[in-house]
């Protein structure tokens, strides 16, 4: 086909374009024609189709996501909010921290290694684009049933991909989750989060301003990988009848990305950059239209100047390519030479591909002919928005009525003991060491805490000991039972996990993983979850700084459990005061903080013992979460606790077993008055933690809890080499460790 220029498009209004194949709906295509006042060129159609995809435009979610802004709590910490590459938070002492979680779900199912690897690459470029040095990554992962044969294909590839990319970049992997549930069969969730650190004055934004400034593309050459990835891969479900989409997954080159990090940071340090954007989904289409749109609007690009890996690529393909490890910087003309010199030093290819103009059009040329002439705002920000219909599912009442509290409970001590063993060895509660040992958590030399701690913690200032903590959590089972409260429980758990390590929660990022928005049941789950999160953020005082929405996680009619994953970022003045999970000293007193109720809906116990999902998730009391966090932070700062562990899935027994095994110190537990042993051990009531208190601090600690109104119940003591629930059973650490650590290798190794 001959080149489809703007001029040609104006002259040939009746040419049929493959808008449907590119993922546009009929009315969307008509809207493009209306905006342009003519039919689009092939290149323009490529840009609109990819930028108006669900993945890039958030067309189904946008009207709901606004709540995060409208309900945002007052926070002095927020420096940059939603809408930029990543949010930025003030952590004091002149430091700012940027962080974000994103999904790379669909590509990771198609090609686990590269899908997961490029997920890490993409989130890290978002962090660099803000001006920050990346300091850590985290990976919340969800797979189908642990014993399903396809899990054995997907999981090892995903883990190797995350490790292969992140390890080679030199970023410690300090946290995340691994969850198995049959609902993720065919739709694994591969979410990736990253944290970066910078000084306040170094914050950079994705904005092309200043006519005459040059647009420089640097990093990898552009190839044919990932073409249409954004519009096709992320927006439709996988259907066996369709041809394989394997070639649409991008291939990562972590070495190139490492060079990109170093050369970008060097350019920032010399103040050479006016605006910057990474090339992720929708490649050059996205980067040029967003940079121009966020600036004054005008930009002229010579597409011939883009360095190519494959010289046969058409201009449309170049615009859509999602080749990895590429960035776009806007640089003042007199600084271009120095910018190119730094790229040369790092052996990074860099090319001026265009400049900022004083108009308000994005114009792209190919062989001297104009092939794109658009208002960049219509591409980047004024895509369609949908008010998808939603309604509470007809089955929701029946699901909630199927009360887990009525499931048969263990009737003898021995049965109780067997259920504890079944729990701690179940794939979701078992040790994930086989996975996490494939990630480097030492590199950069600032890792204070890493998985399996409650939150990952990184020192950011060697002198003062200032540090940041991050925890990611989500519980699709809770959210399925009640998406509003399920989303709040995800936030509450991550918030609590940050606080148990002694850090103060500041802000959140979220990755919202759901099924098809075209299904009113799923859309209801989505709307409820957002409402729940926004409301909870208001009460906890933690603004949403950004994140990502992943829809269409479903195969046929079967959607995944609604799975909002929340990352909470916290700050700690001195990492020397952090509180680890492990019991460290015999004789220390164990206190259970918070209220324990009979709450088994969505619990790990109901899943492991009864393969059951029904009833209601644990109650949410956000004021209580706040109080608990305050107490945990104070206790950590003042040296009143030596170990702390959040209570969540698996309840108290899971937490105590983990702390005991990690510290290689046993525990004697006494069932407190008013509770039966089963509820004491397995309940998943929220707003709780278990802490180990040195005897010398007991009075001070209980006084503090008493004065602030937080229930603190003495439940035992760190002692021996077994977890001994008095009057019920004792399990040696050796036996516990054996079953806890054997499960995952047996399934996957």
């Amino acid at each position: 086909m001959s080149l489809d220029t703007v001029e040609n498009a104006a002259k040939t209004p009746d040419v049929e374009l493959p808008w449907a194949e590119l993922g546009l709906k009929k009315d969307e295509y008509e809207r493009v024609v209306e905006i342009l006042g003519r039919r689009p060129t092939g290149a323009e159609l490529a840009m609109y189709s990819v930028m108006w995809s669900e993945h890039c435009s958030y067309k189904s979610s946008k009207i709901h996501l606004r709540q995060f802004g409208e309900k945002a709590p007052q926070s002095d910490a927020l420096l940059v909010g939603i809408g930029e590459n990543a949010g930025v938070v003030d952590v004091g002492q002149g430091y700012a921290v940027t962080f974000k979680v994103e999904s790379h779900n669909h590509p990771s199912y198609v090609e686990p290694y590269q899908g997961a690897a490029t997920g890490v690459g993409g989130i890290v470029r978002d962090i660099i684009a803000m001006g920050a040095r990346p300091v850590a990554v985290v990976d919340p992962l969800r797979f189908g049933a642990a014993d399903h044969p396809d899990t054995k294909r997907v999981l090892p590839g995903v883990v190797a991909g995350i490790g292969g990319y992140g390890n080679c970049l030199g970023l410690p992997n300090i946290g995340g989750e691994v969850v198995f549930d049959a609902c993720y069969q065919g739709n694994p969730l591969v979410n990736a989060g990253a944290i970066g650190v910078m000084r306040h004055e170094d914050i950079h934004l994705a904005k092309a301003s200043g006519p005459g400034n040059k647009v420089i593309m640097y990093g990898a050459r552009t190839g044919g990988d990932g073409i249409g990835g954004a519009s096709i891969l992320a927006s439709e479900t996988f259907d066996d009848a369709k041809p394989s989409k394997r070639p649409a997954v991008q291939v990562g080159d972590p070495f190139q990305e490492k060079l990109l990090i170093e050369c970008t940071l060097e350019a920032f340090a010399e103040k050479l950059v006016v605006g910057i954007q990474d090339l992720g989904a929708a490649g050059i289409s996205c980067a040029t239209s967003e940079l121009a749109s966020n600036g004054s609007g005008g930009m002229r690009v010579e597409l011939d100047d883009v360095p190519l890996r494959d010289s046969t690529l058409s201009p449309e393909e170049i615009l859509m390519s999602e080749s990895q490890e590429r960035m776009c910087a806007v640089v003042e003309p007199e600084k271009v030479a120095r910018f190119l010199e730094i790229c040369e030093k790092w052996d990074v290819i860099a090319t001026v591909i265009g400049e900022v103009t004083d108009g308000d059009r994005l114009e792209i040329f190919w062989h001297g002919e104009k092939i794109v002439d658009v208002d960049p705002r219509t591409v980047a920000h004024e895509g369609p928005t949908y008010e998808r219909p939603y309604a509470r599912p007809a089955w929701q009442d029946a699901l909630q009525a199927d009360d887990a509290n009525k499931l048969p409970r263990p009737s003898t001590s021995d049965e109780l003991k067997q259920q504890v063993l079944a729990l701690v060895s179940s794939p979701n509660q078992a040790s994930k060491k086989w996975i996490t040992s494939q990630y480097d958590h030492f590199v950069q030399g600032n890792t204070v805490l890493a998985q399996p701690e409650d939150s990952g913690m990184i020192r950011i200032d060697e002198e003062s000991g200032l540090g940041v903590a991050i925890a990611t959590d989500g519980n699709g089972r809770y959210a399925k039972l009640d998406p509003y409260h399920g989303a709040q429980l995800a936030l509450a758990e991550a918030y609590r996990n940050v606080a148990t390590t002694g850090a103060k929660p500041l802000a959140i990022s979220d990755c919202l993983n759901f099924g098809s928005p075209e299904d009113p049941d799923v859309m209801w789950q989505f709307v409820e979850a957002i409402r729940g999160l926004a409301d909870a953020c208001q009460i906890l005082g933690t603004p949403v700084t950004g994140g990502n929405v992943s829809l269409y996680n479903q195969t046929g009619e079967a959607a995944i459990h609604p799975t909002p994953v929340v990352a909470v970022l916290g700050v700690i003045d001195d990492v020397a005061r952090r509180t680890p999970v492990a019991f460290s000293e015999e004789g220390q007193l164990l206190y259970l903080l918070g209220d324990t109720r009979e709450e088994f809906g969505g619990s790990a116990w109901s899943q492991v013992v009864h393969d059951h999902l029904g009833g209601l998730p644990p109650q949410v009391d956000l004021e209580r979460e706040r109080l608990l966090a305050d107490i945990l932070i104070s206790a950590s700062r003042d040296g009143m606790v030596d170990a702390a562990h959040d209570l969540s899935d698996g309840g108290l027994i899971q937490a105590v077993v983990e702390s005991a095994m990690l510290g290689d110190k046993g525990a004697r537990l006494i069932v407190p008055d008013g509770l039966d042993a089963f509820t004491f051990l397995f309940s998943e009531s929220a707003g709780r933690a278990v802490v180990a208190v040195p005897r010398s601090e007991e009075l001070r600690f209980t006084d503090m809890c008493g004065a602030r109104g937080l229930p603190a119940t003495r439940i035992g003591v760190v002692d021996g080499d077994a977890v001994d629930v008095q009057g019920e059973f004792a399990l040696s650490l050796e036996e516990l460790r054996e079953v806890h650590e054997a499960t995952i290798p047996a399934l996957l190794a």
Partner: protein
Amino acid sequence: MTARIGVVTFPGSLDDRDTQRAIRLAGAEPVALWHKDKDLKQVDAVVLPGGFSYGDYLRAGAISRFSPVMESVVDQAKAGLPVLGICNGFQVLTEAHLLPGAMLGNDHLHFICRDQKLRVENTDTAWTADYTAGQEIHIPLKNMDGRYVADEHTLDMLEAEGRVAFRYVGFNPNGSLRDIAGITNEAGNVVGLMPHPEHAVEPLVGSGRTDGLPFFTSILKKLVAAS
């Protein structure tokens, strides 16, 4: 008077900063060296840090070994300059034939990151004098290609000459022959090991131990004594 210890940054080096910190904590002065620069800036010793130089493409260490800086490192190492290669640095040293043998992919085919128990077998090298012979230490290990191999003759020679400097204890994490974790050259100035002593120098971060610090204090004492 302190010692100046160079740390080479190859493209893809990752633990260069950590190594500089470890050198500083030991009381010496770290000096950044650049792979394209033959000038060793008159340092008293050189560390080739861990990482994935050139992405480990082709073969770990195979490309870095041709860097301009390595010409100087090889020349001066032969003349007695103390050189420590950590992980990827060890791989570069074998590729550069400053140390015998080679590194293959881990036998289990996975990247492995763990706090590894080692036994110090040789305390006569420039980098190990602050340990006691037979001392057992924990040093973080993290690699994809850490399986040390050499022919039987070379292995026997290394053993006979006491040039196995470190051995894995309890668990061989990568299938290295004879549990070898680190070796030295005949003169004892060049040492290579897979584990990362720079990640065990502060009680608060990394492995939470300081078992790696003696690498850096050993060399500092030696250099200060010689000056």
